[in-house]
């Protein structure tokens, strides 16, 4: 996928604490200036190129979240924060689905197409710089940086266990 010239973002909060959401908001402020990449927030999911997904998917927010994906046709999804990436500190609560992975599986079972590019940015909350970085990677503005900003590699497992991945229907 080549460079997206202008990336319209729709922000979807599925019941998180709001810290990630405020950092997303901050990432849209002048210090970070994402509009130079053509990034802006839109009101309706129908206009979205990318859905910014926060929150662990509480049961109350689930039907609405499914509706958003039903009407949207995003090119990518950016899961921001520990809750979206892995269910967060309350991943095992009875009131919570557990983040974007079980949510995408649910969409798949409903027959709703899942966007092909899903990036997961952990942090609690991640800095706006990181959100800008991840959005830029998703939009094809920059390549992902091995070694990141500190120059040190996050250790990756020599023999990692593989989880199940939500698949896209073709």
């Amino acid at each position, binding site marked *: 996928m080549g460079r997206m010239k202008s990336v319209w973002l729709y922000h979807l909060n599925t019941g998180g604490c709001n810290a*990630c959401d405020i950092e997303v908001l901050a990432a849209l*402020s002048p210090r970070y200036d994402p509009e130079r990449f053509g990034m802006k927030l839109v*009101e309706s999911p129908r206009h979205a190129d990318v859905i910014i997904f926060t929150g662990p998917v509480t*049961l109350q927010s689930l039907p609405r979240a499914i509706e958003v994906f039903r009407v949207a046709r995003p090119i990518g999804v950016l899961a921001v924060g520990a809750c979206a990436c892995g269910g967060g500190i309350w991943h*095992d609560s009875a009131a919570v689905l557990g983040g974007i992975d079980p949510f995408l599986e649910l969409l798949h079972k409903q027959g709703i197409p899942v966007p092909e590019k899903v990036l997961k940015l952990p942090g609690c909350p991640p*800095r706006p710089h990181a959100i800008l970085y991840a959005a830029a990677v998703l939009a094809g503005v920059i390549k992902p940086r091995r070694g990141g900003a500190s120059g040190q590699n996050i250790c990756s497992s020599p023999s990692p266990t593989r989880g199940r991945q939500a698949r896209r229907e073709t």
Partner: protein
Amino acid sequence: MRLLTGGLKERGVEYIEATRSNYRKVVEEILADKECRLSTCLAYDGRGIDGSLHVAYIFTCHRKGRHVVVDVSVDPATATLDSLYPLTGSPACTWCEAEARDLYGIRFRGNPWRGRLVLPDGWPENLHPMRKDAPRGRPKIRVEEAARRPRPGIPLGPYHPALHEPEYFELHVIGERVVGVYYRGFFVYRGIEKLAEDRFGFMQVPFLAERICGICGYVHSTTYCMAVENALGVEPPEKAKYIRSVLLELERIHSHLLCTAAILHTVGYDTGFMHIMHAREEVMDAAELVTGNRKTYSANTPGGVRVDVDESMARAILEKAERAVSKGVKLAREYVELGEVKSRLEEVGVLSREDAWKWGALGPVARASGIDIDMRRDKPYAAYGEVEFEVPVMDEGDALARYLLRLEEVEQSLHILRQLLRSMPSTPLRSEVTDYEPLRVGLAASEAPRGECLHYVITGKGKKLWRWKIRSPTYNNLALVPELLIGNALADAPVILMSIDPCFSCTDRVIVVDAEKGSRRRVSLARLAAP
């Protein structure tokens, strides 16, 4: 077996055990003092202790710095109690009792709230998750079915493009006047109190507490630690108290500047939003310097703090805070003088002093309506007893007063920071919690950016919690919003809501119901605010 409440009086909390026959009398006596109000209530499952369910009502007499807990036992066979709503007339009472009904199955005779408050829509009827014998694991919910058949007229999603949490308003109008409000919130119900009882140790709970809210999380983690310290009689060292106060004030500044920016955005002045958010960045940098993260500081532990502040760091924090406050407040004051902004806020959403008191308003919402309350001054905690500051109060009670009041509070926060950072003591950073005794009761209150934040704990076996009740100030402030919206113009609804500074932003879409014609339409909030 019984709960251990000895020594609570000396530690600032009055605890009264009442029976179902005499509790109304006890409450009437407390409320005879006009300075006292019902703050919240909680239920707990004491069947393993004394065979009863219990409801504990908590009263705050702000100006006297007094907290009174009235504990009533409820026969589990009938699980019914007379509501205190007829006595108090307070939406805060309605809500906390409705929550106890959802979570414990206790019915309150005379409580006007119908339907669910807290639990998700598809949750099974007779499953009360906070009871000690509630089955574990996620119940079977027909959520997937509900999603498969979208109903026409239901909004796409209560999500606002400028983000925060989702929730759902239905505004009933005649012409352009709001005549009724249906509110469905708690999209953020995550089962936190239950999790804390199940798998968290009491030393891990501050990390859970901090994530209750991403804007005012630190005040929750501090209030929780203070509640445990209150239960166990632990006193944190001086430096820990100072550091807690420094971080609390940094959080207040960031939160108020955020609210100010959000209000400007709501009235359509996005330039103001951008500039204030930019000015706010320095405060976030200061927090990152001390705690290692811009938000969710992970800095508290029961007994003290996990971060240190030395002289050079204190200087750096002060410099950043000075810059952020002077810039942010100056711009905010200039922008609100603009005709198109001021006219949207002046005389909008007026909350009278009587209504504010009766409906349980807290924090800037109460102070802008003439109620002079502030936990930092009325019942000092952390290092607030060591510093001088003013508590601004205004009388107009409109959205403009609430806006300007927060700016004055930000300036006071800076004043407090100057005093704290210039006289930081040098003591250890934490006191060890050596005697963790089960079934000890503790209560702590703090002044969050939005008002009085209460945490109530009952310690349990195995270094865990037996019960934890969180009452954040938005709970009370939000409960009065439906009352406040009635009678106002539809276009003012978003502005009024934002001026309350709820710890979420309102719905992207609201449903507007024409009460005369019965028709429903779906409108975006932005369109409502600027037709």
